[in-house]
């Protein structure tokens, strides 16, 4: 037998992944002071004695951040702890003003969640266990490239509220990791607790990854991969690191437990600069903050207030809108807003399938082209439903409807107003239609002669000319009748 290639090596190994996801909560103020969390303010504009860690300043917990964190924990199926404890994670770094980060350690906010991330070919669910959800504060930002030879520190981000969502090592392969992240992101969007943007840094992913031989049940030694800034980066980084680990193991080597940094440009993982031995964060309960006690009533209230989650919505759409294809349902439940928009149009127009087609086609294209969100789309769902009604009732043609829609996107006006103003109402009045037919025949004497002479296949071309002249408002059926009557005249 010849030496195995890398591909052959990976085929005999299984990738085991657990993810740690940091999510920035959508609050207007920081977690322990009342500074703004606005993104993009001048450096250190959003700071105060508390988040600058001036002598004597003390933290006060932001209750809204706690509500959002509980909301997330509940949506992920976790048990919210009636008592959790903030702890100090001690280490020195210039962008960590207190010299410790306030986080949660041995008594986190919530435990034991479960996330269904898909279905196996045999129909069984792929579930990922969630170990814990805890709250913590973000650190500031060290800026190394702004001033020559020195590092500057911007503490606007210091104290921005985060939750960390830790999964068990239940993910097998980069595709499952990706599915987990997408499912998680979708849920967090539905419950409106975060912007969940990796690009903006409001969602950050660290991956624990190990390799083991197929059939093995004991976990291998893991490494932690950091510094990915997109979902595709996570997938690529996991594949590259898995490949590296497989080669080491295949060659009889051992995996060193260490932190690896993903370099997206080079497509490589590299060991992080080792930080003088292992870190000892000397966690201990923060004496400045009493234990966080969450009464059952508060948990119940937040549970009641949870909106419909993506899985439940897909289930319901399947039952309530049998005309929709599975793909339609996927698209219409991708985000929280599109489903609500769809349902509004579907209900008002009474035609879910047509509503779905419009939304998945023209609406999504316009949103993309005009960089709008469905929540603030210039075309209100009631107006789109009215447009659908106009088409159904033969008041405007489908062609004209597309033009009306384009103007609705631009102006936000109602479709009936636009159709009237732009003379796009379907013209069924024979006198107008006969005039257009006469004009078209006069303008195209050759085709007209041949058509009247019996060349019927030219009818389509001539109808087209008439429709164009009418800017789509002519009723094509009547135009066909009027033209047909000219043959042999």
């Amino acid at each position, binding site marked *: 037998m010849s030496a195995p290639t890398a591909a052959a090596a990976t085929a005999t190994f299984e990738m085991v992944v657990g993810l740690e996801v940091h999510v920035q909560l959508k609050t207007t103020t920081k977690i322990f002071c009342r500074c703004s969390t606005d993104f993009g303010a001048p450096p250190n504009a959003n700071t105060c*004695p508390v988040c*600058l*860690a*001036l*002598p*004597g*300043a*003390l*933290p*006060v*917990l932001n209750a809204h951040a706690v509500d959002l964190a509980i909301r997330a924990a509940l949506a992920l199926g976790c048990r919210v702890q009636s008592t959790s404890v903030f702890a*100090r994670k*001690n280490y*020195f770094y*210039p962008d960590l*003003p*207190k*010299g*410790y980060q306030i986080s949660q350690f041995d008594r986190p906010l919530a435990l034991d969640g479960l996330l269904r991330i898909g279905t196996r070919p045999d129909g069984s669910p792929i579930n990922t266990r969630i170990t814990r959800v805890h709250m913590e504060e973000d650190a500031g930002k060290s800026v190394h490239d702004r001033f020559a030879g020195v*590092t500057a*520190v911007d503490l606007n981000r210091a104290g921005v509220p985060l939750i960390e969502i830790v999964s068990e090592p239940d993910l097998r392969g980069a595709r499952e990791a990706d599915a987990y992240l997408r499912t998680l992101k979708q849920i967090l969007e539905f419950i409106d607790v975060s912007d969940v943007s990796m690009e903006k840094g409001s969602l950050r992913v660290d991956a624990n990854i190990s390799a083991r031989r197929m059939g093995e049940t004991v976990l291998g030694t893991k490494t932690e991969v950091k510094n990915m800034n997109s979902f595709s980066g996570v997938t690529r980084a996991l594949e590259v690191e898995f490949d590296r680990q497989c080669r080491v193991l295949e060659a009889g080597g051992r995996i060193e437990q260490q932190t690896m940094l993903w370099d997206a440009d080079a497509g490589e993982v590299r060991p992080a600069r080792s930080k003088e031995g292992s870190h*000892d964060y*000397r*966690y*201990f309960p*923060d*004496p*400045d*903050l*009493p234990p966080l006690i969450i009464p059952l009533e508060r948990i119940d209230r937040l549970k009641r207030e949870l909106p419909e989650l993506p899985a439940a919505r897909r289930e319901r759409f399947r039952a309530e809108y049998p005309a929709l294809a599975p793909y339609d349902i996927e698209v219409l439940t991708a985000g929280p807003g599109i489903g609500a928009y769809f349902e509004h149009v579907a209900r008002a127009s009474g035609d879910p399938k047509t509503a779905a087609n419009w939304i998945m086609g023209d609406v999504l294209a316009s949103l993309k082209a005009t960089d709008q969100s469905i929540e603030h789309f210039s075309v209100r769902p009631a107006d789109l439903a009215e447009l659908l009604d106009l088409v159904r009732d033969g008041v405007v043609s489908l062609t004209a409807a597309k033009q009306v829609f384009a103007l609705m996107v631009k102006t936000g006006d109602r479709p009936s107003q636009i159709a009237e103003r732009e003379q796009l109402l379907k013209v069924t009045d024979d006198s107008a239609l006969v005039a257009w037919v006469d004009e078209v025949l006069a303008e195209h004497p050759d085709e007209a002669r041949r058509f009247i002479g019996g060349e019927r296949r030219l009818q389509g071309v001539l109808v087209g000319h008439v429709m164009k002249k009418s800017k789509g408002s002519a009723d094509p059926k009547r135009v066909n009748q009027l033209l047909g009557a000219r043959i042999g005249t």
Partner: protein
Amino acid sequence: MTPNDRAAIGALSAAELRDRVAAGDVSPRSAAEASLDRASEIGAWRDGLNILLYENRDDARRQAEDVARRRERGDAGSLAGVPVILKDNIATTSLPTSCGSRILEGYVSPYDATVAQRLRAAGAVIVAKSNMDEFAMGSSTENSAFGPAKNPLAPARVPGGSSGGSAASVAAGLVRIALGSETGGSVRQPAAFCGVVGVKPTYGRVSRYGLVAFASSLDQVGVFGRSVDDAALGLHTIAGLDPLDSTSAAEPVPMYRDAARGSLTGVVIGRPKEYFPDDLDPRIRDKCDASLAVLESLGAEVREVTLPHTHLAIEVYYIVAPAEASSNLARFDGVRYGLRLEGDGLRGMYEATRSSGFGPEVTRRILLGTYVLSAGYYDAYYRKAQQVRALIARDFADVFKSGVHLLFTPTTPTPAFELGAKSDPYEMYLSDIFTCTANLAGVPAMSLPIGRVDGLPVGGQFIANHFDERQMFAAAYALERQLGAGAHA
């Protein structure tokens, strides 16, 4: 203003001075100037007793004039025109806040501590900041980076510590009310050494916002008074819930001065045997027993009680306090404020700044605290210490549950010792043996002068149940009245 006027002002209690100011008989400005003039006369500054670190006459005048204007508007305040001195670890905008440390030398806080704000709101005039053991770590005020303070009653001796400067300021007649802070006896011990009244309120009674943290679960702002009444008035002004301190309590604040009219009939006073060990200086024991006899003669019942875990208090204290301190003092890193010394890279800067900025006792405690929180030692030290701390707290709970209203003990095992007498740190720690228990249990306690030994003041200590300062004041008022002024400085 003639020296006679100044003497007249100096002879007034805080309440009397407040009344004279309110009546327009004494101007706030002359009261403030009398205080600062007296400080110069007795040599309170660095080349003398070294009990004061900073003054700002212009600012004191501005504050005084502001109070005068408020008085004219009929809004004099409960401390109108009363000059006060604050320990150097309480943040003030008008004077530096250096915590007796090189690392904060010249640092001026951009905000006022809540207690400073409340004093100002009540019309008090902050005239100076007082010397202290660096970061409140010490029992003699010899650990100040700005040189040791001396006891105004016996300049070869220490004033006690760590709030030695504030205690001495009251003893020397500069002010009737001064603020200190306690972590383990740092108000009561110097009060005893200087022959003044010192109150350590219940943990949570007074806001810690703006008190530079030493050990957050133990720290509490305390009040010095020339008399029980001065201290009662001072505490009432600063006590009460503060939304900026999550550990401050919503308990209502009674009028402590009303306790002056209280009767001791039916009050049960415990004499804990652990505070009267066989090797206690018999002269101190006699003074305490004489006070207990006085209390009995006033209607109180004296009962022998036991607090069986008392002997573990010093050891527990010297694990818990340094552990918290090691984290609290991490913010002094040279990055944002205070001392910064360049070194080789970031780590070199940290090492140079902190090695040079902190004195030996602070360094010792940071090292000790870092050690006891380290992985592998946490359970053996910090966790165990917290468990024993709970036992010490239960001792107090049990004794108060048994029908005892107050405890009475010596404040310190000895009167003020000579400068340089305690070169062994552990010897020094033992001077807090009777006081640090109240901090560990969070209960209120106060020291008042009960006589003299070798011409040096001896302090007696009352300890009460949580938030029962009123009971403590009632007994102190009564005892003070019976003992007469002779016991005072």
